[in-house]
């Protein structure tokens, strides 16, 4: 596996295999990784962290590919982490996000890594965050995190990013979908992709109308809504501009604090779960809940208190 510090040195020097192996160590929560974290974060260059999420089939991968092309044209080095779900039954996963990225496979200034979510216990949000830190240490900027926006944990990954892009399609549904809580609420930029399909402009208008009303997003301005056709590249340069324009507003002290709060909250939850589930009373306590002798909240309290002593 190699010494982790050596991997970090290679990563910071721009070598690709050490970066790849460092990412594996992060995914596997390898022994010694905790000790490396301060150095890993100190090695960052402040690359712009961009989350890209949305329902399956909305064209996220194709859009990431098109954005990568645009940023390469602008001379930027692009890092990508693409997260796909693991099977809860076998732990296996199929990651197909590279299919649309293969034209960049040989480009030394693009680095893409596929990650399987590996279930909640692994703390995918933390692993994704550390993976982004590794790409940052390697000098990639921007760093794109692509997730399937199907569940709460994916929304959470997106919330760790500085700029969150939510990708929808024209057939996303009626106006009520736009005022439901969830994905649309966390968007800093909202994209209606597949803009060549009938109804794309209408969908964008609906979204604009719904999200501009006061009930849409408490205390936040409605996000810019853009129409792209990732397959042809239409609207992609404008989207790249909008993402870059958002960078400065994401870096105000208030935004930085809000993001840090999310990160610490997430890390704390992961850590508490990890420790408690590795502790001696985990099985007994879970069994007690199964036997209805204990309620789940008292069980959690008991595990936390035990860990603290």
């Amino acid at each position, binding site marked *: *596996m190699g010494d982790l510090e050596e991997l970090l040195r290679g990563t910071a020097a721009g070598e*690709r*295999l050490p970066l*790849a*192996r460092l*990412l*594996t160590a992060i*995914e*596997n929560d*390898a*022994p010694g990784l905790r000790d490396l974290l301060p150095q890993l974060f100190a090695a960052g260059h402040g690359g712009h962290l961009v989350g890209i999420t949305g329902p399956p089939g909305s064209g996220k991968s194709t859009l990431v590919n098109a954005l990568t092309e645009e940023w390469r044209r602008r001379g930027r080095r692009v890092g990508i982490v693409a997260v796909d779900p*693991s*099977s809860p039954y*076998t*732990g*296996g*996963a*199929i*990651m*197909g996000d*590279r*299919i649309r990225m*293969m034209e960049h*496979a*040989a480009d030394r200034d693009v*680095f*893409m*890594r*596929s990650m*399987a979510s*590996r279930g909640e216990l692994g703390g995918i949000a933390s692993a994704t965050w550390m993976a982004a830190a590794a790409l940052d240490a390697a000098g990639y900027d921007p760093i794109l995190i692509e997730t399937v926006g199907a569940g709460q944990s994916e929304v959470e990954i997106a919330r760790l990013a500085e700029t969150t892009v939510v990708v929808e399609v024209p057939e996303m549904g009626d106006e009520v979908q736009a005022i439901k809580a969830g994905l649309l609420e966390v968007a800093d930029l909202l994209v209606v992709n597949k803009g060549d399909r009938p109804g794309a402009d209408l969908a964008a208008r609906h979204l604009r109308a719904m999200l501009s009303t006061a009930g849409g997003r408490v205390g936040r301005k409605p996000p810019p809504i853009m129409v792209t056709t990732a397959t042809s590249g239409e609207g992609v340069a404008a989207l790249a501009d909008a993402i870059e324009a958002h960078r400065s507003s994401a870096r105000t002290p208030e935004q930085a604090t809000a993001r840090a709060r999310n990160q610490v909250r997430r890390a704390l939850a992961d850590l508490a779960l990890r420790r408690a589930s590795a502790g001696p009373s985990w099985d007994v306590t879970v069994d007690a809940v199964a036997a209805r002798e204990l309620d789940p909240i008292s069980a959690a309290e008991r595990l936390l208190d035990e860990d603290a002593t």
Partner: protein
Amino acid sequence: MDDARSTPIRVLIAKPGLDGHDRGAKVLARGLRDEGFEVIYTGLRQTPEMIVDAAEQEDVDVIGMSILSGAHMALLPRVVELSKSRGMDDVLIAAGGIIPDADVAKLKASGIAEVFGPGTSIGQIAAYFREHARKRA
């Protein structure tokens, strides 16, 4: 499961060359997923350079290539060569598809670990990968 490792084995499934379809590769990818592997699928018409670049970034334990076109002698040893030149000596490289028996020995001599012909079950391939993929800490 192999008790030597607690993390899933990462496999890149690739289609080198100009094959017209990838049904076999997709069936295998799906089957390996069900066997608990993390499978990265890269799609059709890959050059050896693209395959090795992807394998490097993904830090896979195994590269599995499916090829039907007859260009295996031109493409597969090149993948081995490139992998070694990048320092990926410990990556298991295997092939499957339509490969004449006469070429199997030559491919193995070039560094292809195993060649799986028609009729091989996914279980056999999974067992082989589990046994021969590098062990991680």
